């Protein structure tokens, strides 16, 4: 079979957060799964599996109504860290199929592969499909679409059944999209789609039948983009995710860590591990990402960007601690696992502090430290050295420490 005129493959995983949970608990495959809100969010259904939908559950339904409708439903909390980890591993695995892989926006569950030139590696599209399926766990039920552009490939993947490959060639794209609803045009805002429907334009083919200038005049650049897509003009390339160098380390705790001091000690250990790695020698760090699995079964993730590039463990520790000390800086449950990742690696930068500003700031910081020490110990255990008899031949007479009066 000859290679069709296609340039993009889309791997789409419907209901990605739920499939990630199935991957974790394979026995849940085929059972009614419901994703509720995170702690602090509205207690409504955010996502539900087809089995749950068959029982009458739908997104937006209050969680308290789930069990009466479907007693065997499994209600889950969002776990963005685990979802991101699975997505990350998929990206890594798919890089073995194509060098250019683009993840779509979070939670859409779509990944695009640039497949130009891959006909020299795989004899048929089915060969490529096998390679993709080998990279993606079957429990995620990936759907695959090949087309000339990203939108058509995504739509083909969404319309294919699990285990089926849908191929839409460049020639067939306009015909393939024409009967589909304008609601699929994700580049348009909901109010624009509403306007299209009010105007009687219900399908992509209806939009494609209009003159380009009229659509552009009415709906601006997003409208022009939708019109081009409707005509099968695929100009948007697959933008490969930039390869970023990161240094990471992780810890798993037998007893969950609940106190700030214990977590800071763990972070200290992770910083020692990461800053001790040869790849960080003579380099600075701009960002840190903390990911944790909590003892209540949820996960927690924070990414902090430092005000300036840091090249020492102590400086990074202070910066992380100041962030964790902020209100809501700490997760609501103890840590089971903690991973730390240093990002934005660069060359070690020299610092040029101001001559007088730095001195004033330093004094203010010392005064603040003294206040905290006085509050904790009842006195200020800070001293500064003064000359007493610098000319003395007796060493202990030359200098003395006096209490720092700040």
């Amino acid at each position, binding site marked *: 079979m000859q290679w069709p005129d296609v340039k993009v493959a889309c791997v789409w995983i419907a209901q990605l957060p739920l499939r990630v949970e199935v991957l974790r608990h394979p026995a849940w495959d085929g059972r009614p799964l419901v994703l509720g809100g995170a702690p602090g969010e509205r207690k409504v259904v955010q996502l539900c599996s087809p089995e749950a939908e068959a029982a009458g559950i739908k997104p937006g339904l209050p969680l308290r109504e789930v069990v009466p409708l479907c007693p065997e439903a499994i209600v889950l909390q969002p776990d963005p860290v685990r979802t991101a980890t699975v997505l990350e591993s998929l990206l890594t695995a798919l890089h073995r199929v194509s060098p250019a892989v683009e993840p779509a926006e979070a939670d859409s569950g779509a990944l695009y592969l640039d497949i130009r030139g891959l006909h020299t590696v795989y004899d048929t599209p089915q060969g490529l499909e096998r390679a993709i399926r080998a990279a993606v766990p079957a429990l995620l039920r990936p759907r695959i679409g090949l087309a000339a552009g990203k939108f058509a490939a995504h739509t083909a993947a969404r319309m294919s059944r699990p285990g089926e490959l849908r191929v839409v060639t460049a020639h067939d794209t306009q015909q393939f999209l024409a009967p589909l609803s304008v609601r699929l045009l994700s580049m348009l805002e909901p109010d624009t789609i509403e306007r299209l429907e009010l105007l009687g334009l219900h399908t992509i083919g209806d939009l494609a039948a209009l003159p380009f200038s009229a659509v552009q005049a009415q709906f601006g650049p997003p409208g022009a983009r939708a019109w081009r897509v409707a005509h099968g003009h695929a100009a948007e390339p697959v933008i490969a995710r930039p390869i970023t160098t990161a240094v990471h380390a992780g810890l798993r705790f037998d007893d969950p860590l609940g106190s700030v001091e214990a977590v800071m000690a763990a972070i200290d250990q992770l910083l020692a591990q990461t800053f001790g790695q040869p790849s960080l020698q003579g380099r600075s760090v701009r960002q840190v990402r903390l990911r944790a699995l909590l003892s209540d079964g949820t996960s927690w993730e924070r990414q902090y960007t430092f005000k300036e590039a840091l090249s020492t463990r102590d400086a990074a520790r202070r910066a992380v601690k100041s962030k964790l000390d902020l209100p809501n800086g700490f997760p609501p449950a103890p840590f089971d696992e903690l991973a730390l990742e240093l990002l934005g690696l660069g060359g070690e930068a020299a610092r040029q502090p101001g001559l007088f500003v730095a001195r004033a700031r330093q004094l203010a910081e010392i005064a603040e430290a003294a206040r905290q020490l006085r509050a904790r110990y009842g006195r200020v255990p800070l001293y500064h050295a003064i000359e007493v008899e610098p000319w003395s031949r007796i060493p202990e007479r030359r200098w003395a420490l*006096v209490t720092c009066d700040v």
Partner: protein
Amino acid sequence: MNEHPRVQTMRALQALSHDLRPLNAPRTLRMETDAQGRVVGVWRHGRLTPRRIVAVQDHWRIDDEWWREHAVVREYYELLLDDGTLLVAYHDLVADAWFEQRR
């Protein structure tokens, strides 16, 4: 054992109030001697084992405050120990006691 006033002064200096602390205060030192009474090793404060003296690198003497009640008479030695440490020690000739102190 009754301590010489100079040693007592040193201890008092170390235990001064929190308002004033001498810097580079001497710390007591135990010297090991051989059968002839020659100093051959030092036992520093807080260490588990004594160290042998390998060489004397420098030597000087201080005679000061002889006009006061408690004169200062010290023989300073810069000692090279068997673990490679360079230690400055002095023999307080008035109190007949040994101390370590940085230069």
